[in-house]
């Protein structure tokens, strides 16, 4: 079996794990060339942390957690050297706009966690449809630095005025680090990102019109109706305007979200939906295989350069 035909998708199951949040179990689903999805091949109850979540075929055309972390590490090292030479010490430089290794691993493992809106019963019970509260990473960066620090780091103060210091590189140390790490052609990278985005979009919309997904929506909708909630499709519940007038969930929202997650689980909504999406992604990837391979080669170039720089 090649990697191409092994489409790994996941089923979110509420596992009775003592003392832990319900852990998503990763279930591999065999797909034959983008047609019908076969049976469950293997289930993994991971000891690894963070738990691997849902994966989709297009994930192959994005950086893995390890690659992403390496790129961040390489850029951060360049920024630190540059800033030190301009008189900023490590304590003043932080936070830099790079995630940590742990954050990268969590982000990659959980990249599709909210793809089908809330799917975790504990998150639903605590936050309803709202995302668990997190830091605005961009705000944190700009607000943690003084104008003098921002001049060195980004070459401009937060009001957008370009620094008058002629010892600071264009775009500051972050600009210099980005240029040093950019080995692949920028237009080619952008074209590849656009292609991945369009394949992703086409597959998403194709899945929304797929009979398997529409049947799953009907089953989910009937389950919700029994619980007293009237929605035709899951995203209608997520996007109910009543929830989005405040920053936190109220009692109605939480009750709806809890019923929603229970109905998703009892009707097998997410496995059906993600399997349909995976099928369309596989099919549309095959139609652009050469271009996507070339894009993946560009990503690999960036990773190799970063690896060399940190060695």
């Amino acid at each position: 079996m090649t990697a191409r035909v092994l489409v790994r998708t996941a089923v979110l199951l509420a596992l009775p794990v003592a003392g832990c949040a319900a852990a998503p179990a990763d279930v591999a689903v065999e797909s034959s060339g983008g047609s019908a999805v076969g049976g469950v091949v293997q289930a993994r109850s991971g000891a690894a942390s963070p738990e691997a979540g849902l994966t989709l075929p297009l994930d192959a055309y994005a950086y893995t957690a390890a690659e992403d972390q390496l790129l961040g590490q390489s850029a951060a090292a360049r920024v630190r050297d540059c800033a030190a030479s301009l008189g900023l010490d490590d304590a003043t430089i932080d936070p830099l706009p790079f995630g940590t290794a742990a954050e990268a691993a969590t982000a990659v493992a959980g990249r599709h966690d909210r793809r089908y809106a809330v799917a975790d019963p504990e998150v639903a019970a605590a936050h309803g449809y709202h995302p668990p509260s997190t830091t605005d990473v961009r705000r944190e960066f700009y607000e943690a630095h003084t104008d003098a620090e921002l001049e060195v780091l980004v070459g401009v103060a937060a009001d957008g005025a370009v620094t008058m210091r002629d010892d600071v590189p264009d775009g500051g140390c972050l600009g210099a680090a980005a240029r040093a790490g950019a080995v692949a052609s920028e237009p080619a990278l952008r074209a590849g990102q656009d292609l991945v985005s369009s394949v992703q979009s086409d597959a998403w919309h194709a899945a929304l019109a797929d009979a398997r997904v529409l049947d799953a929506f009907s089953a989910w909708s009937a389950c919700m109706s029994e619980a007293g909630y009237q929605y035709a499709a899951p995203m209608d519940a997520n996007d109910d305007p009543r929830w989005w007038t405040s920053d936190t969930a109220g009692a109605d929202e939480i009750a709806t979200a809890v019923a929603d997650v229970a109905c998703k689980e009892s009707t097998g909504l997410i496995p059906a939906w993600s399997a349909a999406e995976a099928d369309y992604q596989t099919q549309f990837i095959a139609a652009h295989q050469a271009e996507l391979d070339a894009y993946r080669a560009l990503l690999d170039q960036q990773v190799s350069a970063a690896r060399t720089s940190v060695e």
Partner: protein
Amino acid sequence: MTPIRRLAAAVAATIMTSVLVAGVSPPASAAEHDGSCQGLELCLYYNSGQAGALHDFRYRVSDFAPYRFLGSGKGSGVPVKNNAASAANRDGYFTARVYFNSGYAGPADDVPPLSARNLGDTYNDNASFNWCHQQPLVCG
């Protein structure tokens, strides 16, 4: 970020509040929600190719419902939610991620630092957006 780094950042942010208000806060001419696409903002446009009326955002938005396209271009006055065709990210170091659904849910389109693009998944289906570290790609 480790807890210690996060705490340090939080303390720094608190200490810097006065600086933020006095010095780092943008002048009125560079305010968000003013219909002018300036540095450090994510701008959403009514038409493809960064054309038509726009709305400029400095901070993440969990639901676009309160906002309308501004200025005199095509689409002025139309709700931003589910009506944006293209985007420009004027921040140099953070990726803007535009989501299909409210509360950073559903599939998403990334707008890398200092780039502009037509929206894919979220074309006329944009409900929320968040800022992310570009590398590793970690969103708040």
